[in-house]
């Protein structure tokens, strides 16, 4: 009986920690990139970040490019400007969605073209949550969102 009780308590603990893991951790989802033409040197990736606590994205990297960089696209009047940003604030409980015409990840100096239907790894480093790996799905060159959301 004692053994049984111990087991059920242990099981309860396992379930509780699993539930905590789901809600208490930063999550990166819906990662996608635009396919690039054969000779393109730059690519672009987008994704969604959710964190129960405030955090900050400070670094991005991927083996497919010489350099990955956090960028933002801003409009001043009708003029489009792309600027690197040092970090990206992730507010607690609010999804941060990287999407066209906003914040994005620039992949500079691609080793080869990103082909539609393929995928590649990307590592995001957060101030508190540490490094997170994500698989990025490659969509059409002019895609406006991940396939799953269309």
């Amino acid at each position, binding site marked *: 009986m004692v053994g049984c009780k111990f087991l059920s308590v242990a099981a309860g603990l396992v379930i509780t920690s699993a539930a905590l893991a789901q809600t208490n951790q930063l999550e990166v989802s819906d990662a996608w990139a635009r396919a690039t033409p054969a000779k393109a040197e730059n690519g672009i990736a987008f994704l969604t970040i959710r964190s129960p606590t405030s955090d900050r994205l400070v670094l991005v990297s991927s083996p497919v490019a010489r350099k990955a960089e956090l960028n933002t696209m801003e409009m001043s009047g009708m003029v489009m*400007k*792309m600027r690197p940003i040092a970090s990206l604030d992730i507010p607690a409980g609010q999804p941060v969605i990287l999407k066209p015409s906003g914040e994005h990840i620039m992949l500079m100096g691609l080793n080869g073209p990103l082909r539609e239907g393929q995928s590649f790894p990307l590592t995001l480093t957060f101030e508190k949550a540490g490094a997170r790996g994500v698989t990025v799905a490659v969509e059409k060159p002019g895609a406006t969102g991940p396939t799953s959301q269309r």
Partner: protein
Amino acid sequence: MTGIRLPRFALAALFLGGLVILGAAVFLGLAHRDSPRGAAGTLLASAIGGPFRLVDQNGKMVTDADLKGKWSLVYFGYTHCPDACPTALNDIAVALDELGPKRAAVRPVFITVDPERDTPEVLKSYVTAFDTPILALTGTPEEIAQAAKSYRVYYAKHPEAGGDYSMDHTSIIYVMDPQGRFTASFTHESSPEEIAERLKKLLA
């Protein structure tokens, strides 16, 4: 209780700022106004578009005269731009798909603002990635400057660490009629449906 008092120069600045905003609003209002004939025949029709001499993705010379006879959707951008430019070109491709048989009357034109990196070969590989035939143009820095001047397009190099650079540039899709007159405009934020609707009216 005294109200907020602004010095005279601040009032003047506010007034001038207001004038600039008003002017921009009038310009945009004109540029986006929805009349079947578009802006052709108005002052704007002659203010945007003009002479240029460039080469296409196959190395063939193209001048403003070659654009006549068809409607043109002219967009200035560069191939190292992975955000606004593919969005604009994709929106054009999707919009043209909705035109049916009239699609043949419209020619998308992509003019680079980055002639340093965008050679005809680079442009060729770039535009073939989109689902519609696109006339892609480049030239010497002087020729590009002339084309941009004709279309009132602003562009500037923005250097970044490690020798990389991005280009700031006007992000407008210009609709030119078969006589080469500016008729309407869109941005990379216009939806393909919006573009298709407007083009259907213009082509009717």
